[in-house]
């Protein structure tokens, strides 16, 4: 969809719409600059036309150059495979913009993030509690992502206000941040009436490490190693999304060989995580035998990873401009044999699970996330597909997946069983895809090119195992990063969990949680 088409479409819904400028620097990105006055109406119109939730909403501090803040709101146009950004300049004297949250819930958390990190107020957002900078340890008025932030200024500390459910017979169960298992930290507060959960409030941000600030000022070729430390179980997807953004900026297009290799490793990452979650779901209903089997399969894949690239978590493979290693005939063969064996083991695992009546009873119709709810709160990735929303970046931005005949799995019921089935079908599809990609490797093509650094901005995106991982990068003329915005699928999907558990009993929370298996570190950054 070219600029003029989209402007016409928006004008039909919102006649006063006009753009200051419209850029199409890349085939898959379109940026429309508008005035702050029409920002809200323009975003709502786009939301209606594209049927897209807000996939990214973030701010930049450009006060040194232009004296202004910039806020970008990104939508996804699935039909034309394009990311559409609405961009506004905000004067530094009056740092606020019109909130979208009352009309589009999916923007709410992004707005809270902008407020706490930049001090730009989303006017009209009813909930401005901070997500990551906890009131108990971080004084108000310190905005760490502003360029002039150097050191925390001491001030008065506050306390987080949980929303309370009151009434006869209602009591609260606070859990966390330190949980019983070997797992990341987060606080969950259940309000229950008897057994069923009537409200779940999450308080996350415990693993906040200031990742986005740490990216700033780094050379983008070297910073790729840092992107692997953002979320350890999606290290490859994160470094790939980062590399893709850098490559768009540098104007490098990677060779076909490198693209196949990247797809192979991306699918391996998906496989070990999916089988881990299948085991986790079994553990959480007390079915330890298949859990042990899936742990064996996961360990097998991790060891295969180590054999192929020297790292169990697929680190140090991606480079800006390609990949660092190729697979020789030996490695290809051992991968093929491994996949054959793993497929057999995996079918045993699914047979044990699906033939157990008591297991099926626990997962069937547990933790239902309705399609409408999922759409409204902007759930994406695997959790969205399990609720009947057909979104998968591998389908809409296919690249090498097109040649391999990628088939998107989808389920309708949105319960734990649907998410389990999604993982099973995606695991099998990943097996098949890897075999296809292995057959296409020729061993001869150059697999990496050296990038030429320049000043630009671009969006890199990957369908990781949880869902899309997005990296929006802006570099200066020396290739140093000015701003790096990361959105992991977990950021949108944690809200989905809050709705999925409603009406379920507290003992089913672990299995609901595991069926989403969201990242704490990817969310908290």
């Amino acid at each position, binding site marked *: 969809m070219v600029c003029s088409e989209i402007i016409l479409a928006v004008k039909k819904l919102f006649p006063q719409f006009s753009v200051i400028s419209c850029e199409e620097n890349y085939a898959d990105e379109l940026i429309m600059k508008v005035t702050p006055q029409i920002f809200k109406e323009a975003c709502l119109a786009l939301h209606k036309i594209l049927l897209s939730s807000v996939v990214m909403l973030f701010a930049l501090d450009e006060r040194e150059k232009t004296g202004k803040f910039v806020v970008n709101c990104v939508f996804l146009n699935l039909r034309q495979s394009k990311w559409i950004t609405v961009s506004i300049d905000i004067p530094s004297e009056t740092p606020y913009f019109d909130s979208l949250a009352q009309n589009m819930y999916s923007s709410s958390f992004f707005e809270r993030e902008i407020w706490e990190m930049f001090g730009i107020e989303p006017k009209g957002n009813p909930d401005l509690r901070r997500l990551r900078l*906890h009131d108990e340890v971080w004084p108000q008025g310190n905005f760490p992502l502003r360029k002039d932030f150097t050191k925390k200024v001491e001030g008065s500390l506050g306390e987080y206000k949980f929303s309370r459910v009151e009434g006869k017979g209602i009591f609260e169960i606070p859990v966390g941040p330190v949980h019983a298992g070997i797992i990341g930290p987060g606080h969950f507060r259940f309000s229950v009436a008897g057994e069923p959960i009537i409200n779940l409030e999450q308080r996350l941000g*415990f*693993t906040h490490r200031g990742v986005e*600030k*740490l990216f700033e000022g780094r050379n983008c070729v070297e910073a790729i190693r840092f992107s692997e430390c953002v*979320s350890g*179980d999606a290290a490859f997807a994160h470094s790939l999304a980062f590399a893709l953004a850098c490559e768009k900026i540098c104007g490098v297009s990677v060779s076909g060989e490198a693209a196949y290799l990247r797809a192979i490793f991306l699918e391996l990452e998906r496989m070990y995580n999916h089988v881990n979650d299948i085991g986790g779901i079994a553990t959480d209903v007390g079915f330890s035998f298949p859990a042990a089997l899936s742990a064996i399969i996961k360990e097998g894949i991790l060891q295969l990873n180590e054999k192929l690239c020297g790292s169990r978590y697929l680190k140090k493979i991606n480079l800006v401009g390609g990949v660092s290693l190729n697979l020789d005939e030996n490695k290809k063969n051992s991968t093929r044999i491994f996949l054959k064996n793993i497929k057999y083991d995996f079918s*045993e695992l699914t047979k044990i699970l699906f*033939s157990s009546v008591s297991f099926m009873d626990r997962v069937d119709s547990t933790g239902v996330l309705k399609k409408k709810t999922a759409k409204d709160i902007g759930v994406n990735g695997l959790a969205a597909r399990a609720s009947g929303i057909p979104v998968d970046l591998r389908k809409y931005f296919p690249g090498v997946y097109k040649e391999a005949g990628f088939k998107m799995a989808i389920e309708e019921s949105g319960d734990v069983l649907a998410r389990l089935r999604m993982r099973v079908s995606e695991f099998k599809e990943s097996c098949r895809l890897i075999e296809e990609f292995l057959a296409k490797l020729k061993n001869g093509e150059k697999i990496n090119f050296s990038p030429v650094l320049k000043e630009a901005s671009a969006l890199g995106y990957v369908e990781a195992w949880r869902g899309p991982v997005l990296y929006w990068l802006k570099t200066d003329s020396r290739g140093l990063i000015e701003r790096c915005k990361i959105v992991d699928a977990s950021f949108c999907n944690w809200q989905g969990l809050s709705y999925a558990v409603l009406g379920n009993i507290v003992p089913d929370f672990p299995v609901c949680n595991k069926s989403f298996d969201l990242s704490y570190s990817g969310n908290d950054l």
Partner: protein
Amino acid sequence: MGHILKNRILKGVMTRHIDLDLPQEIELCGGELLQIIQGTFGRSLNIREVDTGSCEACESEIISANNPIYDLQRFGVSFVASPRHADALLVTGPVSKNMLVALKKTYQAMPEPKFVITCGDCAFDGGVFKDSYYVEGAVNKILPVVLHIPGCPPSPLMIIRVLLSFLKCRKYS
């Protein structure tokens, strides 16, 4: 049930299809570890794990150390759900400001004798996150750390090996 039993008998050792490459010393070092822990802690070493802001790769590897292949538990080392049950605290991550209080409280909740082990490069000195505005850095500035397991993330074998060499040389009173 019949299906599972049949499958179990037919398959024999579950790991047979997977080229596991399990080094021989693991059984041996595990046996030694068991002896030391039996001497010091009576029957077993109970560990409570706390994530203070790691990327969760360390957690994944600690879980892997407990999987049927490495099976740390068979040597008497087990991971417990509450600090009240723990002899040792295993800390991962660069200590985010948000986790500082939770980390201290978890340590306080443990009964004596107790010690702290750090796992992964972040917990040692903040690692790649040490310059952040929101990171406290090295765990040993906050709690008395007696052992560090290096790696990003350390492999399950590394975790087992380091635990052994530590318990071998230290007389814990």
